[in-house]
């Protein structure tokens, strides 16, 4: 039996995969193209369709997740618009560097090595920070509450100390120079354009560690920005027929449910519990990309499958941890603190 030209079994697979990705996307503000595109490539879809459909899926998911975070008051629109400006410029420069490297015949290897180093580096850093943390770092539920100075990472404090006018006041009372925001946005955009990825895994930690934005607002603002970059990317790929709706529609149906769970979990789960898993997922992602590169270099196709199993396993582990921690938190709430309605 077929719907939209594909089998019901495949639709079920896409919906299930969508739920998994939606949880990660809603919770961390990342994990879309990083997971979907490699999966579609391994399933045999052409690169153009895999990338284009992945991007359209990321666009749809980010719309849903942004609406959810907006309802929770976790989107800083001023910061989002500034980040879009800086990121767009960075992406353009990143693309130019890629084109130049392609002319020299060096693009493939340099991009892969950079991707592995970056993913692994951020993964190690986040894991280290989570493990050395004091463990009491729950998420601040009131997005407009002033940020506790001790909760701001040291690097962010350093960046905030450069008081080059004009100064911008962000959610949580954080004051940062406009130029610092644009510099961080440009740097993350540069990497995003250079690596050809949405950049959530770069931008979300950058907003938290470099600018000092509280994690829930970093996630919501990152999603807001992805909505624009994903929309533009989808449009560009769709012009050349690179977006397959029979892939995007079921994936989105699943991820909409998952994103609802993931977004709600940001207000329930203790952030420090999940950061370790997030770091581990990035590290496993780096190993998976390295494995695929080695497989391509030496011509061992099975390493592509190993790479995909690593990515899917990590995604399953982390989304499972988010759901499990949410249930444990809800069950451990005292009766008088329990909400009368679900945390939607």
């Amino acid at each position, binding site marked *: 039996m077929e719907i939209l030209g594909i089998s019901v079994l495949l639709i079920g697979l896409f919906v299930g995969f969508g739920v998994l990705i939606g949880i990660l996307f809603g919770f961390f503000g990342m994990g879309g193209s990083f997971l979907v595109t490699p999966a579609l490539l391994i399933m045999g879809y052409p690169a153009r369709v895999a990338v284009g459909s992945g991007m*359209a899926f990321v666009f749809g998911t980010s719309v849903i997740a942004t*609406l959810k975070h907006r309802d929770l008051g976790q989107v800083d629109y001023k910061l989002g618009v500034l980040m879009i400006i800086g990121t767009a410029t960075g992406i353009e420069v990143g693309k130019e560097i890629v084109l130049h490297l392609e002319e020299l015949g060096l693009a493939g290897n340099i991009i892969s090595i950079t991707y592995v180093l970056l993913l692994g580096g951020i993964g190690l850093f986040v894991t280290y920070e989570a493990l050395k943390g004091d463990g009491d770092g729950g998420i601040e539920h009131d997005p407009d509450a002033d940020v506790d100075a001790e909760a701001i990472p040291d690097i962010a404090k350093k960046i905030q100390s450069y008081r080059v006018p004009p100064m911008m006041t962000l959610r949580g009372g954080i004051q940062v120079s406009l130029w610092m925001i644009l510099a961080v946005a440009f740097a993350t955009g540069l990497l995003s354009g250079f690596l050809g990825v949405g950049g959530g895994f770069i931008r979300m930690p950058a907003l938290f560690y470099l600018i000092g934005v509280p994690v829930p607002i970093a996630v919501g603002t990152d999603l807001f920005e992805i909505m624009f970059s994903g929309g533009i990317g989808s449009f560009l790929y769709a012009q050349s027929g690179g977006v397959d709706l029979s892939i995007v529609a079921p994936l989105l149906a699943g991820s909409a449910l998952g994103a609802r769970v993931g977004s709600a979990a940001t207000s329930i789960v203790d952030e420090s519990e999940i950061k370790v898993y997030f770091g581990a997922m990035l590290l496993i992602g780096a190993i998976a990309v390295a494995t695929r590169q080695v497989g391509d270099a030496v011509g061992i196709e099975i390493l592509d499958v190993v790479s995909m199993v690593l990515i899917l396993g990590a995604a399953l582990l982390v989304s499972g941890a988010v759901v499990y921690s949410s249930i444990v938190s809800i069950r451990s709430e005292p009766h008088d603190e329990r909400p009368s309605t679900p945390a939607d």
Partner: protein
Amino acid sequence: MFGIETLSGSSYATAIVGIVLVEAMVLYVGYGTLTRLAGPEIMARMRGD
């Protein structure tokens, strides 16, 4: 699919982005309604009430 095959170039791309956007909004509202209706029961079960 969705009757947009006859379109081309930018019109086709706009239609694709529009369909994804509409699907996202419908899913957001649909799942939101479902959460409001079934949410309290699910939460009560998760708490073990």
